[in-house]
């Protein structure tokens, strides 16, 4: 039997389409426990490759014959080896191109909607890590919000669309992934914006985002309104695009809310977080479509692969927006926290420009799941 290849893009489409897939993950157990490729109809078995060096006979009966089988490892090499062994044993399997390293870096552009006056809004779904970036396009110009460090994806996409990137925004100083903001601005000559309160220690130049400020993309005036909404970080800023889309950064997600502890100030920031969620957002139109900077679980994906829901829906369904009692809220966001993201201190320092790790090191720092939220 031939060994097939499956790319990150292929697997992303299977997730979007809720197809089934059997994943034989041959990384060591602790890496598998830390994070894996998840899909609603994906099944997993973890057998480290080094248990299979003498042969795959013992696991053959664990592999279903009625499902597509994908062998996954950290960087590809071991999955090729195991896939070849399975193939020799008569099975039809694929290996995963680039391994979990590629999975961590894959961005899938998905169109959210057309905008008024002919513009377009795209969401870039970083499916393996749960990061969401955005591109607003109008009349030959583009703005990018919360870009990841894989900046070539954005520049390539802009090129295909025939637009020039004019503005780059970060909603806040990220702690879970390395921002591509300054790099992208440098590469394209765009203006880089970030909230001044998150930028007190940064080593680069930036344009300060101010509450109530407005940036226009293209001649057709797609306005981006900055809305100060602290809580995940002190400077966290939301945007309202085209009077319809509310980009909430890491303050509000679809099925969870932002965590206030990643800069070591959980106790101080709880009140800000509550104020942003329960007063500032409450005062906005319920018809706004919330587009967050992250998703945590595959259930948060819409059928077309986008991540978004109206503010009204979230106020009725998101548990974090429905805790009447302030003390209970405080308890939830300070005590009920998932582990902190891998290397989050180093990631913060990188995003401040204080350290500049090599590419390979940046990759390692970002490996692992997203952990920005509390549910």
């Amino acid at each position, binding site marked *: 039997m031939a060994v097939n290849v499956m790319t990150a893009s292929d697997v992303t489409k299977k997730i979007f389409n809720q197809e089934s897939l059997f994943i034989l993950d041959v990384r060591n157990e602790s890496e598998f426990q830390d994070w894996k490729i998840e899909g609603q109809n994906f099944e997993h078995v973890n057998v480290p490759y*080094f*248990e299979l060096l003498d042969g795959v006979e013992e696991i053959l009966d664990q592999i279903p014959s009625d499902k597509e089988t994908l062998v996954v490892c950290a960087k590809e090499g*071991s999955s090729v080896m195991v896939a070849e062994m399975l193939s020799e044993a008569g099975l039809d399997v694929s290996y995963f191109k680039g391994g979990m390293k590629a999975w961590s870096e894959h961005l899938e552009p998905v169109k959210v909607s057309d905008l008024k006056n002919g513009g377009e809004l795209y969401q870039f779904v970083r499916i393996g890590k749960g990061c969401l970036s955005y591109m607003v396009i109008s009349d030959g110009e583009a703005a990018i919000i919360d870009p990841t460090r894989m900046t070539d994806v954005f520049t390539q996409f802009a090129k295909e669309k025939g637009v020039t990137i004019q503005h780059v925004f970060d909603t806040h100083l990220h702690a879970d992934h390395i921002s591509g903001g300054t790099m992208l601005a440098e590469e394209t000559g765009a203006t880089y914006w970030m909230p001044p309160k998150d930028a007190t220690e940064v080593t680069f130049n930036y344009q300060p985002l101010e509450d109530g400020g407005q940036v226009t993309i293209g001649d057709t005036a797609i306005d981006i309104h900055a809305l100060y909404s602290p809580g995940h970080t002190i400077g966290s800023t939301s945007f309202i695009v085209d009077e319809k889309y509310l980009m909430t950064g890491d303050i509000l997600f679809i099925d969870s809310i932002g965590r206030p502890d990643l800069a070591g100030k959980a106790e101080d920031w709880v009140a800000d977080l509550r104020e942003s969620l329960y007063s500032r957002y409450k005062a906005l139109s319920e018809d706004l479509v919330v587009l967050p900077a992250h998703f945590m679980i595959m259930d948060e994906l819409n059928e077309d692969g986008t991540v978004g829901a109206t503010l009204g829906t979230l106020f009725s369904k998101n548990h974090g927006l429905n805790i009447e009692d302030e003390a209970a809220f405080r308890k939830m966001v300070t005590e009920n926290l998932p582990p902190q993201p891998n290397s989050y201190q180093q990631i913060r320092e990188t995003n401040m420009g204080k350290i500049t790790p090599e590419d390979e090191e940046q990759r390692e720092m970002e490996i692992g799941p997203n952990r920005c939220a509390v549910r």
Partner: protein
Amino acid sequence: MNQLKTDYLLDAKGLACPMPIVKTKKTMKELDAGQVVEVQATDQGSTADMEAWANSSGHQYLGTIEEEDVLKHYIRKSSDEDTTETKYPHTASNEDVKAKLSNNEQMIVLDVRESAEYAFGHIPNAVSIPLGELDERADELNKDDNIYVVCRTGSRSDLASQKLAEKGFQNVVNVVPGMSEWSGDTEKLNN
């Protein structure tokens, strides 16, 4: 850290996963039980894999030292020492030794494990003489001292205690089980 004494050096530098483990596994087959291999690798993922592989295959993962982008993994081939009976009559438990050390009793702790095992964790001030070197180096020890002999499980230290007794050492005690279950202080060679 100075060069650790090992029985075999495997160069797996520049090789991507799975090759470092594939080569280590092959090398292990050539080694005698209880021998130590140093595997040099540059694949960052090799540390976690080496440890997990050693544990699952019964070998003893000793530790890893990173030196100028090269990862040096130390692994000791499995031996049947866990099941061997000890014969030397004078033994002390880990707890006895711990108590004596905290009372500052006059005593020598003699660690007869391989030098790489010793390097990654030993009782403070323990003297390192691997079992295989004991015959030629026994004269470094003083025959009248109280010597507590320790290894990983009490098996090698049993042999070492017998050897020392034959050579006329009067006050030799085998520590059982030894470092595998040692809960007192340890120190490492500076990394």
